[in-house]
């Protein structure tokens, strides 16, 4: 019997080896068996910054409220400076909260 060469063997295997069925849930099943994801360093830092900004916002709100109660003066520059600082702090808080929850979502 004439010996087959390697290319002929390959062709034989190509033609007569059944391919596994495409299983679109295979990856999902593997991922479900992995351990729960720990928070990354990035997420932990994000959480610390979020808490800090929250504390700063709270402190500014309290200071602003006290100041306004004690010396209500809507024409004073100081009032508007405080109001501006509070607005910026709230925007930063919103941005940081968004970043934090996004990193949690990406991690899952």
């Amino acid at each position, binding site marked *: 019997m004439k010996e087959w060469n390697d290319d002929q063997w390959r062709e034989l295997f190509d033609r007569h080896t059944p391919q596994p069925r495409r299983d679109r849930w295979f990856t999902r099943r593997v991922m479900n068996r992995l351990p729960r994801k720990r928070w990354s360093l990035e997420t932990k830092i994000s959480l610390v910054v979020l808490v800090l900004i929250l504390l700063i916002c709270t402190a500014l709100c309290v200071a602003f409220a006290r100041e306004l109660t004690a010396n209500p003066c809507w024409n004073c520059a100081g009032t508007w400076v405080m109001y501006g600082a509070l607005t910026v702090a709230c925007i930063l808080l919103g941005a940081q909260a968004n970043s934090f929850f996004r990193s949690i979502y990406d*991690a899952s």
Partner: protein
Amino acid sequence: MEKTEDMMWVARCALLDDRKAFASLVDKYQGRVKRFFLSLTGGDESLSDDLAQETFIKVYYHLRSYKGLSSFSTWLFRVAYNLYYDELRKRGDRYFEPLDEAATIPQSPEPVDRRLDMTQALSILRPEERTVVTLYFVEDMAIARIAAVTGMPEGTVKSYLSRAKQKLGEYLKKNGYERVE
């Protein structure tokens, strides 16, 4: 390019525990790993699926031990190969015992070319021969790479390959399959 993509995903998984990167690796290699196990288990789809899943779980847990000295796919197949032999030892070798070489292609009115299933034909080989033939002809790996996957010397790989080709050739001839057109 393909190797760069794999290395990028592996790095993201190992350093950042990036699950999306790991899912990309699973998506990319699931077909090849399942096909590898199908050939080794004689077409047992359920067992092949279980072994393929176990392979990727093991890869996830041991990703940090991948040093990058070989390609990721070589390392992946090494994990799969070791898992196969663990399963072999657990089942006491009886499940994967080679079929009697007198086994034939199932009879039917169809021509032998249509009835031939190489996965079944591989069942007449010993597990080591089956592994080497699968990696060489189905996964198209070079001898050196097969040696890296199996941990066998290259000479042993060539010896198993030669023996396997001889056995398969006799099996096919016995069943009326003389040559590839």
